[in-house]
């Protein structure tokens, strides 16, 4: 059990005792601030990080996650509680022991990289070993190995300012890995990178983790990132941990309204909606066309049914190929007599999850409408493809 955190609190301000007492009595963060002038950074966090897992601590800004990670290596002095690493309590140990832990057992990667601008990439990577007083030759060799690991072997003699953001953070990662620590603390390590690079870095971290098997505590405000890389996720709000669980547990079983809302919010914005997967519908005109035209169009496109609209594309219903053939044989010229209107309809912003429920037993493709006007249709294949892929699917090509 590499990290065991119990009742860990950080209260900023002078009257910490009183603030602690008020928290014990169940007052909220705001009330404590009002009554004592103290800011609750972290409020009695208790959790355990298993060996070799990526433990994500996630929360919005101001939720205390950055404070919490700094309590883990005591960059911030805890007000209360304990942090046990390999059975040693970091929160109470003396400066020398703390330094020893920081040097050998845990390294940190920073949001804004925190590289030393006057040192080369190699010298940056060597920093951790340099402060331990390791011989130049040995530390250079280890730093080079770490740089190779993150794919920056060829940049050893450059300065950080000569590298892109993504590369700089690789140096940050290499610097942390050079020490060969048991625990990696990553404070919003990828948040300053643009989305594409961020995704690359996430992939790379997961690849590295396959072989390294470090214990990683990863801080993020991005639920997508948390779900992507986390073995387990701790959700924070107002300094407290509201839920700890695997990504599935958090999505399926949100512990409370806050988590639910969080997950929902993310879903609403991220998950695919109808307009992303619909395709252009084949239609016939209610006023102009009869069964003959409808049948012809269905034959051309290889469809078994076709939608009927009026001149301004208001959806009227649909006719099936079978009905149209019968009507033609019987000499019926109006579509109205064979038209059906039991097709399922959804809106442009209906999520795939909901579409999946209605498409299951619909006789015809799901229709997407906006103010009664036909905008597109969704076939079963497109939904399944989108669910399977998890990526955006372009309806026109589906």
């Amino acid at each position, binding site marked *: 059990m590499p990290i065991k955190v119990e009742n860990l609190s950080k209260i900023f301000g002078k009257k910490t005792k009183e603030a602690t007492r008020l928290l014990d009595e169940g007052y909220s963060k705001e009330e404590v601030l009002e009554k004592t002038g103290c800011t609750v950074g972290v409020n009695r966090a208790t959790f355990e990080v298993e060996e070799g897992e990526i433990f994500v601590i996630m929360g919005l800004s101001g939720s205390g996650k950055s404070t919490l990670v700094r309590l883990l290596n005591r*960059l911030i002095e805890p007000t209360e509680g304990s942090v046990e690493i390999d059975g040693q309590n970091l929160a109470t140990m003396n400066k020398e022991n703390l330094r020893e832990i*920081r040097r050998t057992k845990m390294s*940190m990667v920073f949001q804004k990289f925190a590289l030393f601008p006057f040192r080369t990439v190699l010298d940056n990577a060597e920093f*951790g070993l*340099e402060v331990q007083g390791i011989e130049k030759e040995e530390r250079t060799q280890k730093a080079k190995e770490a740089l190779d690991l993150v794919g920056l072997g060829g940049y050893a003699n450059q300065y950080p300012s000569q590298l892109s953001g993504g590369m700089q953070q690789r140096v940050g990662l290499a610097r942390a890995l050079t*020490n060969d620590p048991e625990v990696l603390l990553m404070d919003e390590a990828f948040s300053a990178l643009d989305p594409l690079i961020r995704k690359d870095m996430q992939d790379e971290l997961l690849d590295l983790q396959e072989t390294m098997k470090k214990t990683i505590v990863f801080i993020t405000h991005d639920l997508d990132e948390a779900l992507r890389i986390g073995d387990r996720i701790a959700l924070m709000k107002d300094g407290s941990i509201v839920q700890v669980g695997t990504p599935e547990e958090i999505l399926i079983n949100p512990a409370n309204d806050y988590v639910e809302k969080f997950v929902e919010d993310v879903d609403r914005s991220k998950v695919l909606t109808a307009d992303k997967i619909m395709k252009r519908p084949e239609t016939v005109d209610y006023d102009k066309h009869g069964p003959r035209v409808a049948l012809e169009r269905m034959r051309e496109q290889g469809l078994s049914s076709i939608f009927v609209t009026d001149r301004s594309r208001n959806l009227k219903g649909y006719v099936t190929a079978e009905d149209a053939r019968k009507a033609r044989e019987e000499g019926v010229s109006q579509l109205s007599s064979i038209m059906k209107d039991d097709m399922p309809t959804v809106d442009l912003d209906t999520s795939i999850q909901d579409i999946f429920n209605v498409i299951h037993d619909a006789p015809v493709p799901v229709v997407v409408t906006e103010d009664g006007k036909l905008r597109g249709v969704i076939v079963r294949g497109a939904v399944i493809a989108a669910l399977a892929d998890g990526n955006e699917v372009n309806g026109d090509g589906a």
Partner: protein
Amino acid sequence: MVLDNIPYIPVADGVDWFVDKITDWFSFVFDPIKDGFGWLLDNSADYLAMVPPIFIIILVAILAFFLSGKKFGLAAFTIVGLIFVQNQGLWEELMFTFTLVFYASLISVLVGIPVGILMSKSKLAESIITPVLDFMQTMPAFVYLIPAVAFFGIGMVPGVFASFIFATPPVVRFTNLGIRQVSKELVEASDAFGATGNQKLFKVELPMAKRTIMAGVNQTVMLSLSMVVIASMIGAPGLGREVLSALQRADAGPGFVAGFGIVILAIIIDRFTQNLNKEK
């Protein structure tokens, strides 16, 4: 009147008494400093004055050329300026002034940087030292000459002392500022990797603060130059003494020439210290 009822407070007498006592009590410190340091200053200036000017001019010009990134501007100015001073018969005075500035700034920097570091590390130190620095900088510079004479007599040593008091504050302030400006993440990074306080200072904070500190050093050097000129009033030799004696004789010509010599020295020193601070 109410105010007239407050008895006169003998501050001036108190300061007199204090200076007298300090002079008495610490004469065992001041006297050796006066003798030893006076000997060092005299000898340095004398030896410097013995070197043929042409050697010094060439050496300084070469330094200027390389310091300014292999450009000819500063080197050319140095050559013309120094030849002018030599031509006006002020070479020896220039050497004396330079010696004074050199030692005065050296002491200011050697004391100032550690004090600045202390200030940056401790809020208490900062709150005590800041008003002292304000006092040192705003008190008219002439005032320091008086106790300087009491402690060290007349000559170069009291000049260096007065200059030290007057010129040290900038390097202290800039050192403090430079270290406090080091980004929090870099400080956290060095802590997180288990650097000791000294390692953090020498491997991260001072290198990061270097440019700010050098700007402070530049200020300090320029202030000591201005002070060693004033120090001519208590018998410090050099270009300042020429200005002073021209003033006493209301002799505009020699006064201007000596003043011009000071300007040349000031520009050379300023550009040298600034170029030291430029990124290579």
